[in-house]
């Protein structure tokens, strides 16, 4: 059993592109083992917040730290799954190679793969069910298979913070269930998971839910944050009971 420590912290954080703020006044205090679901429509700011936590976008105002450092400063300990990982048709890479790239943060430019790296890759492949097509070129895989491959890449880093932007997009029901099981297992070993999703059902098992609509509509435990009034304000309709 791990002792919970603060992993992601922000105060009055504003995120956006260039000089354009998309969401402001974000206060986060996430602990190890937490699952935070970011929920909102397209353009609500979910991906922008994740990119800021990953360090690919600069915070526009306020303060933010991930594992006590600036976002992007600890690549070995933080892994990020973008919304639509690019799978170019020209890339001559097998699914296994794509998963192994998750270890590059540990390997840097020169270090050679060790047993630890190889085990991390094969473990991620097994957990995501990608073994059956691991030797096939990425360009020959279906959208769902590619999504599982990219998720395996993120897991192979064995990070302490996972930033997942719609990891279940393009997956069937069994794939979605498998992702939920993976997230639960990661949390059990003390990993903080920040998950962007459209799907309200993904939020039920979360420690906290942040409803976004170019501002923070609500942030708190699922039962509290997902009230009819908040959901209506965020999506323009009420969830069926």
């Amino acid at each position, binding site marked *: 059993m791990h002792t919970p420590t603060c992993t992601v912290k922000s105060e009055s954080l504003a995120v956006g592109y260039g000089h354009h703020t998309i969401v402001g006044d974000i206060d986060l205090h996430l602990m190890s083992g937490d699952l935070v679901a970011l929920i909102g429509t397209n353009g609500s700011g979910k991906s922008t917040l994740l990119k800021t936590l990953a360090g690919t976008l600069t915070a526009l105002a306020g303060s933010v730290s991930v594992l006590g450092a600036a976002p992007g400063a600890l*690549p070995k300990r933080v892994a990020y799954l973008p919304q639509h990982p690019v799978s170019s048709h020209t*890339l*001559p890479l097998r699914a296994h190679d794509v998963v192994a790239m998750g270890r590059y943060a540990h390997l840097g430019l020169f270090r050679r793969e060790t047993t630890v790296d190889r085990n991390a890759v094969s473990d991620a492949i097994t957990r995501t069910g990608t073994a059956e097509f691991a030797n096939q070129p990425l360009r020959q895989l279906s959208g769902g298979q590619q999504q599982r491959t990219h998720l395996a890449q993120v897991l192979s880093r064995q990070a302490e913070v996972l930033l997942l932007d719609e990891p279940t997009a393009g997956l069937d029901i069994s794939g979605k269930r498998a992702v939920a099981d993976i997230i639960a297992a990661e949390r059990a070993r003390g990993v903080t998971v920040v998950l962007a999703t459209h799907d309200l059902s993904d939020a039920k098992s979360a420690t906290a839910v942040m409803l976004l609509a170019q501002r923070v509509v609500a942030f708190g435990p699922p039962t509290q944050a997902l009230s009819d009034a908040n959901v209506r304000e965020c999506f323009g309709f009420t969830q069926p009971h």
Partner: protein
Amino acid sequence: MRQALLASVLVALVCAVTGTYVVLRGLSFVGDALAHGVVPGIAAALLLGVSGVFGAAVSAAVMMTGITVITRKSRLSSDTAIGLLFVGMLALGVIITSRSRTFVGDITRILFGELLGVTPTDLWWQSGALVVVGVAAFIAHRPFVLMSIDDGLARTSGFSVPFFHSLMLVLVAITVVASFQSVGTLLVLGMLVAPAASGALLARRVSTMMLIAAAYGTAASYIGLLVSYHYNLAAGGSIVFVTVALFGITAVIASIAARRREDEIPHQHEHQREHRH
């Protein structure tokens, strides 16, 4: 003739390494711009009687700076701005060359190369460029491959994207400078892109893609030189034409193979279903 073959094989090898990353990262247009942008430097060097390689290197540095500034700051789309920059440089090259008494000969040599006029010094330059490009690509292989998928992936894996992008441009510039003597600035893009693109169609791994590109480039050098010798054709043009023709043949074969594979998959599913019943 042996010297010409050696020079074209060195061009094929250096282009195979750089071309692989150019194709993977989608930098063909930038590669073309760099190749055309070296023309004024070579022209000025010829006029002043100094080494063309030196002039090309200075011009390439100017082009790289221009491309980097445009990519970061331009309010126009970068392909428009880079296109204008390289056409401007090409025009400047033509203006400078027009001051030469042997205008037509000079501009033809710059644009289309003079493979049969390659000197031992040129071969040394090319060998040095191959070593530098090979070592740099070996060191930067991981960030280069990550950037081929997504810049964000490279950044979140701890690699500086601006640094490695600039390094890739430097490698393209070195390749262009090392190759222009053999195939010319206008045709070097063919050697840079066509063998690597053929490799991308056939390979399942980046290293295999590079090896295929090297094999295609070397084969095209041999066939192109042979054809040019027997039929009295331009050597550089013949080699590049063979490279592009080989790519065309490979693309057709790869497309037929992909269609067959797609046809086989439903058959396999049907077979499995029947087996279960």
